[in-house]
């Protein structure tokens, strides 16, 4: 038997996209690789534009998340390279953050539309949103959260979801997903936030 030792992997752009799309085993290694690839350029950019090292880490992580989602949703518009894409997303995020903090920024030519991202793509985390979502998803239970995460976010095929969760077959997994979504919809419609909007307008 061969012993396994950690090897530092290098991935081409097509390998990165293939691994993330088909959810192959090396997904974590790809994330490590991407982090190392974009760290120098985004570090230089952010530190020279009123940022701290904590800001650097934050932006790198968020930019990779945007890239990850675009790949999963087959919405990636790659102009040049993957690392170039993530760098551009990171730059946009940083400019956005500086603008929101009312800091003066010298904007370069706007490349962001060319890679198909907008402000909604880059504002990933918002306190109200996170707590509202957490509250509602907690009402549908862990099993539903897992199946919906796997299906909706990770885009895992239903037969694989069945295997991962110990369901007897694909149809059972599909039924589970359907019930979970139905439950989620009910929870949304019964939420105070939703009811307030609906009732406000009914009484107008």
């Amino acid at each position, binding site marked *: *038997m061969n*012993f*396994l*030792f*950690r*090897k*530092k992997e290098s991935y081409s752009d097509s390998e990165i996209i293939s691994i993330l799309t088909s959810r192959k*085993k090396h997904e*974590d290694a790809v*994330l*490590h690789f991407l*982090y*190392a690839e974009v*760290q120098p350029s985004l570090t230089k950019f952010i530190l020279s534009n009123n940022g701290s090292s904590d800001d650097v*880490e934050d932006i*790198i*992580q*968020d930019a*990779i*998340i945007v890239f990850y*989602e675009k790949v999963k*949703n087959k*919405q990636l518009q790659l102009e040049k390279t993957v690392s170039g894409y993530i760098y551009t997303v990171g730059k946009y995020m940083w400019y956005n953050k500086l603008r929101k903090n009312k800091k003066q920024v010298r904007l370069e030519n706007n490349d962001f539309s060319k890679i198909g991202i*907008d402000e*909604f793509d880059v*504002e*990933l*985390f*918002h306190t*109200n*949103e*996170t707590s*509202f*979502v*957490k509250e*509602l*998803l907690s009402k549908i239970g862990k099993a539903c*959260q897992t199946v*919906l*995460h796997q299906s*909706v*976010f*990770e885009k895992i095929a239903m037969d*694989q979801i*069945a*295997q*991962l*969760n*110990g369901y*007897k077959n694909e149809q059972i997994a599909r039924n589970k997903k359907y019930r979970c*979504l139905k439950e*989620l*919809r009910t929870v*949304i419609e019964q939420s105070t*936030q*939703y009811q307030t*909007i*609906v009732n*406000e*307008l009914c009484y107008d």
Partner: protein
Amino acid sequence: MTNTTDKQLIKKFLRNELTPEEKVAFTTRKEDTSFLEAIENEMIAVQSRQELKKKLQGIGADHKTQKKTTPKRFAPLGIAASVILLLGTIFFFNQGVNNQELFDDYYTSYPNIYTQKGASDDDKTLFEKTMILYDAKQYPLAQQNFETINSERELTNGERFYYGITLLEVNDTKNALAQFKNISNTSSPLYKDAQWYLALCYVKGNHVNKAKVVLTKLQEIVGTKKQDEIKTILNQL
């Protein structure tokens, strides 16, 4: 794909920031099934992004640690050269180096050799189902299954081995060590690999002398070339 206006409405709904005009637009749209699906999908994405963020924060912490203290990287090496690096770093540990980094440098999970292709789900044993979870890196779920099997009967060496790897993946080094230690049958095909992971567990737990003992014994059962190389290293410590 959700259009920009819907995206805006959904985001602002989730953030409780809809303006009066947007509330009207939201109420109009809420009868549309695709709009409701988009709200559901965005909620799932919000939570999933949090999980991915945590993973990336861990990766970021790894990178920070590696930048500070890791010596120069080497190209992939065979067992002897890697053992040289391992033992050399264990020596440095006695002067204060963190063995967690050393563990992180050399640990990698073991591939599944038990895949049953073609068998229907009904025919699969709990272990086979667990290995599917293992393959998919669903280690917490795999751990639960291993605990179930372990509660029902004695584990085989193969099951014990993968249980050990699973426990390492969920950061339960103490119990992982116990599993590898219990693979004591030297004629088991996984014995040498189990000894390797046992050594890594000792390294991670900063049990340097025990790591040396295991590696010394390992030296005796690996191939001739490797034996000489490990012997040379041990003589230098």
